[in-house]
């Protein structure tokens, strides 16, 4: 297929490699090295999308990150992604793209009716229209707005691509490889600094690739290639193309987005698609260059209106003509270069210059080349709907507010230049307060806030000489501070055209009796008239104008529109631009994929998985796992077609009747040592610890300073100055930090050390009436009688040669033990228990049975210790010492905590003895009462009591035990249930605690 607008003998693309791609169902060809945009333009395609609000036809305006229009739905390798900038994505074989925000097609879009209704869609339209009636919001307005909002369609399929994160440190990060970036990176590298040079585009060199300059008698492109090849040889330099530094964060942390695999047609399995770099740089050079801004005129969004710099780039880099009958519409010298480039390629341009009869080097050159120039002229309206066909141009009066004459001339593209805006986004993100430079009518960075220096065009220096000089100087200075080396640089000689002063002109007046839209922000469809409305309606702050009109709020962050918008406001308000101020620049500078942000932390890698030493056994024995923090714990061991409830009932019942074992390795374990350990525990726990004898365990509750329960568990005195503390699985890390806080900060005089030993010990609970018989078989040489190893006793022994710790503690409320061995022997211990337990009908039990057992015993756990309960609330009054001080004690006297009717723990059974009560249900007196129905409490834990064979729950309810005997309703709006319940004691089984002592 013919590429109608491709030039021969120019461009940096690889003509030997033809790439076939698809756009809106039609097949096209381009070359390797093309972007999707340049390939489409090579085929004469300008119309690529429809605008956001009015669905107006839109084409390419820029050639890079500045592009506001060409956001496409792109599919590569079967993976579809919306809002891809066609000017940034490189062409790869099989790429398929479609236009967004249009239906049924980009050529014929029903939504374009909005364009004819545009006087009904002014700024603030949504705010004004969708206010009433209120009942319309959910069913009518919201779905409508949702449908209208957004551009492309996110894929609903799983992203199969690989993304990576990388952390890097360097002496100097240089963001942008234009002349200033190359010079500074080179100077710093020569000083031995560790340098990272990041370039957003695939090709290094920035404007050197398109500007007609010479450096040391080389073309800009050749010079940049020479510098790059030298940098590539230096081991202290990392060169990264296709990499956009998009965020400048605290303490000189930069985040960079690298497109690693997007441009590769066959990438290997382990090549990531994209990579996110976190770069901590000692110094940063912001050499981000500048972006050309358009001049605003009527229908300036018609496809075929492009930035003059983009037109030049399409020619010089891609060998593509954006048109064959171009108008160059400018207020400055730089656009003349675009005219020269057209001329070089045998295309006859016409230059409209808003300046009055003007003379400069480029004007002379244009005249010498025979290019027609019309001074004091500008484009008033672009004619043509889907493509520019002609332009109404006009000679401006002296005050530039009206026209002396107008005429219409034929053209197929309008290359517009309204001068240059430094790219100050990163500098602003770093905290740098920008200042307004009147010479260039734009903001540039002010005093550095972090370790950042902005140089080159980003700093408002628009001559190559200045840019290269400051590049070498800054690169050298910053690096020698770090490396202490000071390599002499020979600053190259530069030949360039000297530009004369530009015209401070940015918006064409409207002709009489015509009212075409003049767009300021293309991506969000904000026109001059919208800004006028906002100001007329009283919005003054630029931040408010921005939000009301959505000016600069699109994904292009107003790169081409910000300054024109500010000029507009300042003109109407009769203020100077710096008084109006600018809106805030926030990361990311360009949109980045969610995949890159997430990186490898997906699926199993979302968080680390902690497995106990017995995990493999559980897997082999049909355990169904549940996440407990990062841990995987067996929830139940499935037999046949059992449901969760059936299995947990079987397992719990077996504990009550025979014996069961449970993997309790996940409990937090903290080793506490030191002469003051007893005193420390005495302060940490609410009960007394000074007199706990060696070889005894004790249950304890610890509070936060505000009196709320933080955690509970048992702690055992292993020897005189050595304790073994257990915590709940969930609170293990917090408890350790808590203990360290008090030891290091509050009571550093206490001689105590704490260390986590959770990973060091494997633990198994043996629970049930037959547990002692089983234990005696596990430790045949040990006296495990009630006298030798009483409740809360502790013995050290060995399990078939393996050192073991035996604790007689119980969570299930049955006669029970916990055995700990060194982790490596965990599986050995478990298998021995399974083998020896067979004769006692031992069965393993999971967390669901474990919960059942503790709930019907009235033992509290996480759902009750939810950070809102004090010991008195959960029947732990007995554990609160009146004699000694402890963490949080002073809070327990608070008025709210001693209220008679405070919410406290009780038990619940459904009056029908059948209906399970959903956890989280609210307790109310009258299920039919009008809302808001006074809530008397909530259901914290629910189970099926295996002892009594009916549902049983724990609840926290007003007035606690005084409510026993009353009937309430447990209402769950989530499950849509309302169950009548009877309040009973929270101790449903063995209230005297005889079993644990048996």
């Amino acid at each position, binding site marked *: 297929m013919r590429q109608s607008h491709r030039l021969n003998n120019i461009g940096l693309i690889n003509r030997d490699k033809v790439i076939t791609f698809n756009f809106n169902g039609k097949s096209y060809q381009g070359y390797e090295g093309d972007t999707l945009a340049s390939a489409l333009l090579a085929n004469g395609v300008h119309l690529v999308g429809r605008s956001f609000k009015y669905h107006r036809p839109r084409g390419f305006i820029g050639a890079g990150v500045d592009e506001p229009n060409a956001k496409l739905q792109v599919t590569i390798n079967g993976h579809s992604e919306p809002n891809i900038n066609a000017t940034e994505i490189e062409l790869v074989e099989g790429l398929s793209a479609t236009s967004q925000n249009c239906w049924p097609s980009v050529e014929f879009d029903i939504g374009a009716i909005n364009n004819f209704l545009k006087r009904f869609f002014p700024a603030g339209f949504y705010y004004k229209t969708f206010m009433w009636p209120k009942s319309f919001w959910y069913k009518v307005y919201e779905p409508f707005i949702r449908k209208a909002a957004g551009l492309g369609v996110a894929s609903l399929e799983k992203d199969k691509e690989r993304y990576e994160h990388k952390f890097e440190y360097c002496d100097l990060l240089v963001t942008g490889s234009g002349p200033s970036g190359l010079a500074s990176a080179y100077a710093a590298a020569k000083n031995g600094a560790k340098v990272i040079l990041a370039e957003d585009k695939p090709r290094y060199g920035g404007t050197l690739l398109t500007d007609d300059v010479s450096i040391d008698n080389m073309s800009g492109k050749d010079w940049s290639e020479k510098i790059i090849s030298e940098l590539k040889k230096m081991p202290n330099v990392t060169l990264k193309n296709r990499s956009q530094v998009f965020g400048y964060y605290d*303490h000189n942390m930069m985040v960079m987005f690298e497109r690693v695999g997007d441009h590769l047609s066959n990438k290997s399995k382990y090549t990531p698609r994209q990579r996110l770099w976190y770069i901590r740089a000692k110094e940063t050079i912001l050499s981000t260059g500048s972006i050309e801004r358009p001049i605003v005129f009527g229908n300036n969004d018609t496809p075929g209106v492009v930035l003059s710099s983009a037109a030049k780039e399409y020619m010089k880099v891609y060998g593509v003509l954006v048109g064959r009958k171009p108008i160059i519409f400018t207020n400055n010298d730089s656009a003349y270069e675009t005219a020269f480039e057209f001329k070089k390629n045998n295309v006859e341009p016409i230059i409209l210059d808003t300046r009055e009869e003007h003379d400069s080097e480029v004007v002379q050159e244009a005249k010498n080349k025979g290019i027609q120039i019309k001074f004091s002229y500008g484009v008033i309206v672009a004619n043509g709907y889907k493509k520019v066909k002609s332009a109404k141009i006009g000679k401006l009066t002296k005050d530039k507010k009206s026209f002396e004459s107008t005429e219409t001339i034929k053209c197929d593209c309008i290359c517009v230049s309204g001068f240059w805006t430094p790219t100050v986004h990163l500098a602003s993100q770093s905290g740098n307060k920008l200042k307004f430079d009147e010479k260039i009518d734009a903001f540039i960075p002010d005093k550095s806030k972090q370790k950042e220096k902005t140089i080159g065009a980003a700093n408002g220096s628009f001559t190559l000489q200045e840019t290269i000089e400051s590049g070498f100087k800054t690169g050298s200075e910053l690096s020698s501070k770090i490396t202490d080396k000071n390599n002499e640089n020979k600053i190259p000689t530069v030949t360039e055209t000297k530009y004369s002063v530009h015209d401070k002109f940015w918006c064409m007046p409207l002709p009489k009796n015509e009212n075409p839209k003049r767009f300021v922000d293309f991506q969000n469809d904000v026109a001059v008239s919208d800004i006028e409305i906002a100001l007329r309606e009283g919005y003054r702050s630029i931040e408010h104008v921005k939000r009301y009109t959505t000016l600069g709020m699109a994904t292009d962050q107003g790169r081409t529109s910000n300054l024109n918008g500010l000029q507009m406001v300042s003109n109407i308000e009769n203020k100077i631009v710096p008084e109006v101020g600018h809106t805030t620049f926030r990361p990311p500078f360009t949109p980045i994929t969610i995949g890159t942000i997430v990186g490898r932390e997906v699926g199993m890698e979302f968080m680390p998985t902690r497995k106990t030493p017995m995990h493999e056994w559980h897997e082999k024995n049909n355990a169904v796992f549940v996440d407990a923090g990062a841990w995987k714990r067996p929830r139940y061991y499935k037999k046949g077609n059992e449901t969760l409830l059936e299995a947990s009932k079987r397992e719990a019942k077996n504990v009550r009747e025979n014996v069961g074992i449970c993997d309790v390795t996940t409990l937090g374990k903290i080793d506490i040592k030191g002469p003051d350990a007893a005193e420390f525990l005495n302060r940490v726990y609410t009960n007394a610890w000074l007199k706990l004898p060696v070889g005894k365990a004790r249950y304890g509750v610890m509070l936060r300073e505000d009196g709320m329960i933080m955690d509970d568990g048992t702690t055992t005195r292993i020897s005189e100055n050595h304790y073994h503390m257990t915590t709940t699985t969930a609170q293990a890390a917090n408890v350790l930090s808590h203990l*360290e806080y008090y030891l290091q900060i509050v009571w550093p005089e206490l001689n105590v050390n704490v260390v986590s030993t959770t990973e060091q010990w494997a633990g198994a609970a043996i629970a049930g009436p037959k547990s002692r018989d089983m234990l005696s078989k596990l430790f045949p040489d040990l006296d495990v009688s009630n006298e030798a190893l009483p409740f809360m006793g502790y013995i050290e022994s060995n399990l078939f040669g393996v050192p073991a710790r035996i604790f007689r503690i119980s969570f299930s409320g049955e006669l029970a033990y916990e055995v700990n061995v060194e982790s490596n022997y965990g599986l050995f211990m478990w298998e021995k228990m399974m083998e020896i337990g067979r004769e006692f009908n031992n069965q393993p039990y999971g967390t669901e049975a474990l919960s059942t057992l503790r709930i019907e015993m009235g033992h509290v756990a996480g759902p009750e210790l939810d950070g809102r309960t004090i010991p008195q609330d959960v029947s732990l009054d007995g554990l609160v010492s009146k004699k000694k001080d402890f963490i949080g004690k002073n809070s327990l006297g608070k008025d709210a905590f001693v209220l008679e009717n405070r919410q406290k723990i009780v038990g619940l059974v459904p009056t029908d003895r059948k209906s399970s009560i959903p956890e989280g249900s609210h307790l109310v007196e009258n299920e039919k009462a009008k809302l808001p129905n006074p809530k008397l409490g909530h259901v914290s834990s629910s189970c099926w009591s295996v002892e009594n064979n009916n549902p049983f729950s724990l609840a926290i309810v007003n007035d606690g035990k005084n409510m026993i005997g009353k009937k309430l309703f447990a209402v769950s709006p989530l499950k849509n249930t309302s169950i009548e319940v009877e309040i009973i004691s929270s101790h449903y089984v063995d209230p005297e605690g005889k079993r644990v002592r048996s």
Partner: protein
Amino acid sequence: MLHINCPFCGLRAQKEFAYGGDATVKRPEINKEVSKEEWDNFVYMRKSPRGKHIELWHHISGCRQWFKVQRDTATHEIFKTAKMSEEIV
């Protein structure tokens, strides 16, 4: 992401640390009578200054030491870090 100079380990990324609040708050002494007001001030009342703030950080993924950091709450500038036994003036 902040870059914090742990007095024991050196400069590390914020990821390794946990924030611990105002370092100038002193817990009333244990086993001593304390007025309700004093206690409530200790538990609940915190200044929220804009500017310099001496605060606690815990190097949880490192040496597990608590230490002091003097940071500007508006700019995140860190002026000094110090061991618990040292003063920041």
